[in-house]
């Protein structure tokens, strides 16, 4: 068990590195000059002011401060002869090793201006000139809240349906639930969300629920007790929760149904039947317990699905979460924030994988005994 845990946690590292490398690469590939963006958007009055020489001075100051004058990576490849000469020599690579480079600073910071990714600094937002990390940490709560709420709700509803339908395949209940679940599974969540908003939150049709946001526009009245605040918030949560939940519900339920249908063909079920157990006990004691194991693994599928699916839903409902942030940043071409969201979502997703794998290993003794392979 310990060795399995150790191995699993160790395998977290290359994945983490891959996410960090990918985010750095994306940051480098993003169009536009960061210095121009920072000067242009954050200091509109300074842009036109001063002589050309002064502007140039500001630019090179920022370039130096952001470390853009440094080589990009630890290793850099330069052609043997200067680029202008051309010929075969310019195709021969020479490796250079740079201890101080942009990636190093991206990770560890440069001591005074930025603290680096590993200390939670994701660079500066072009649009607001705030640290990108701060922007996101303020908003991560709502994303996690809706994701967790929807996943828990989806599990509570999906498990009984999946178990019941899967244990008697071909029964009317199974056929009906199959039909409904496929239907739900195929409904695009953003479409349902828009339709629900159009019908139930539209002053022209039925104005039952508020259309956007997660709390009253003017904020809560002064001195309102906590419980009343919750009551006031609930109407804002109903429609988003429905939209978040139903697609993961269909996913979990369908997968569970397939699992348990396969499980009913196993030898030990036949043995249980052969020794004369009533069908109810066979299903309850032998099938359900084993079928619930993969549900833990399903968590790994549902959690990132819900987390990244929230980009569209948060935008529709104007929920101030990470998804809404990424949408706004795409509109502003605010690349540091986009990439920061990408990194944080990646890390949360990976943590979800890690936790569910560990839970699975705790629940199923077979796992930790064998070397882990990718499930087929």
């Amino acid at each position: 068990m310990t060795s399995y845990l150790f191995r699993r946690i160790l395998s977290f590292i290359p994945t983490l590195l891959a996410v960090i490398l990918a985010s750095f690469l994306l940051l480098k590939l993003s169009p536009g000059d960061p210095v121009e963006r920072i000067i242009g958007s954050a200091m509109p009055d300074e842009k036109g002011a001063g002589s050309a020489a002064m502007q140039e001075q500001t630019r090179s100051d920022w370039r130096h401060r952001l470390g853009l004058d440094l080589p990009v990576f630890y290793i850099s490849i330069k052609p043997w002869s200067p680029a202008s000469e051309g010929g075969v020599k310019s195709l021969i690579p020479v490796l250079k090793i740079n201890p101080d480079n942009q990636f190093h600073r991206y990770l560890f910071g440069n001591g005074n201006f930025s603290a680096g990714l590993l200390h939670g600094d994701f660079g500066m937002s072009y649009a607001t000139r705030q640290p990108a990390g701060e922007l996101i940490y303020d908003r991560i709560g709502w994303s996690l809240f809706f994701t967790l709420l929807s996943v828990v709700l989806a599990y509570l509803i999906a498990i009984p349906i999946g178990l019941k339908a899967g244990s008697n395949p071909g029964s009317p209940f199974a056929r009906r639930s199959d039909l409904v679940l496929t239907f739900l599974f195929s409904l695009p969540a953003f479409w349902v969300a828009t339709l629900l908003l159009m019908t139930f939150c539209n002053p022209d049709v039925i104005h039952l629920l508020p259309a956007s946001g997660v709390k009253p526009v003017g904020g809560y009245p002064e001195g309102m007790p906590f419980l009343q605040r919750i009551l006031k918030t609930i109407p804002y949560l109903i429609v988003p929760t429905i939209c978040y939940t139903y697609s993961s519900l269909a996913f979990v339920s369908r997968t569970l149904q397939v699992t348990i249908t396969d499980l009913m063909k196993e030898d030990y079920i036949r043995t249980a039947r052969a020794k004369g157990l009533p069908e109810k006990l066979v299903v309850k004691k032998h099938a359900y317990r084993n079928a619930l194991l993969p549900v833990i693994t399903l968590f790994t599928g549902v959690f990132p699905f819900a987390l990244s699916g929230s980009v569209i839903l948060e935008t529709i409902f104007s929920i101030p979460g990470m998804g809404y942030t990424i949408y706004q940043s795409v509109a502003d071409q605010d690349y540091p924030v986009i990439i920061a969201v990408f990194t944080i979502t990646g890390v949360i997703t990976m943590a979800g994988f890690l936790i569910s794998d560990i839970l699975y290993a705790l629940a199923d003794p077979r796992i930790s005994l064998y070397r882990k392979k990718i499930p087929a």
Partner: protein
Amino acid sequence: MRGLLKHIQVIKKQFLIIPAAYLLVALLAPVLANRDPLILVQAGQWSFPSFSNSPYVEIFRPEGEFEQIRKDVINWSEQEPDFILFAPVRYDPEPSDLQNSNYVSPFEKQYAQSSRGHQVSLPWSKRHWLGTTKTGSDVLSGIIYGTRYDLMIGLGAVLIAAVIGIAAGVISGYFGDRSLRMPLLSLLLCLLLIPVSWLASFGNVSVVHGEIASLSFLIRLLILFLIPLLPFIFYKFLGNIPFPGRKMYFPVDSIISRGIEIFLSLPRLVLIITLAAVMKPSAWNIIIIIGCTSWTEIARLIRAEVLKLRTQSFVDSARVAGFPALRIFFRHILPNALIPASVVMVFAIAVAILTEAGLSFLGIGVPYGTVTWGTLLFDGKENFSAWWLVLFPGIAIFGLVWSLNNMGDHIRSIYSRNPA
């Protein structure tokens, strides 16, 4: 090819009808919705204005002369051709109908401008059956052309995903960790050649700005990947060199499986949005982005299938019969592995279309002016009273996704009943 046909024949007709109908609409889009007449016969001469690229159409006058009129201003009710055939929907998605702009509902009164400049009500043949958008584009026409666009994105993305996924899955499943033997020298040379190929294709400024500047992106990509592969192509020759040429095992399976695991733990939609934001908005970029991020499922499945098939007795007997490895591989293993993968691919088309719709719904990815189902929904969310902008494109998306999901389920049930 025959195998593929047989594979399709097994699927019940009822599961094929709806996807086939969508495909037909996509293929026939210019015939189903077009502003210009499909067939025009005047003075015994046939012409097809909707299929010519010229912005003018030639109109014959009874006096025997002809006149060139711009297609976008011509009023067809004034002309008197011998025979004229219009498409069922008389609008293109893009040039908008200014008389009916600003969200006209399907049931509202729709207007047209008569030749004298009066506002008259629109004849039934030219009605906007599903309403218009803010700029006055016809929604039905947009949905018809959107079908084309969305199917192209779905199929293209899955094609890319299938190529990458099948290659990765087959290599890792077939060779495993302990059967691909290559000279060490090949690997070392490959590592050495990577920077060279980088300089030769993208890296070297002088080459880029010099004579090879005209090289297209694809050729550069080819150079980038081909040069490092050379030592592997000439591995037999390199294997003759005594020490560094000694053959060793390549753990391809471990490498690819690790890669898949890493890829799986990246948040897919966020990655797609980030890439789409960083890259230039275009249909091809969307196809490439979605394709390159959805190959993992296919690769995993193919790998598992190949692992299973490799030990089957029919493969052993083919080997005993003395067939070459490549033949065994292409005739016996790959076709059998593709069948279960086709289920995943059908689901993947649905997911790709949903992803594209979601992206355009947010206004990310597709270039401005392209009409897809998602961009129609995007217009609809701006104005909640324009229910037709949300309802109809949504039904189009749902119908396709639902029928594809049903088809996938059906294929899975066929092959789980009698496994290959």
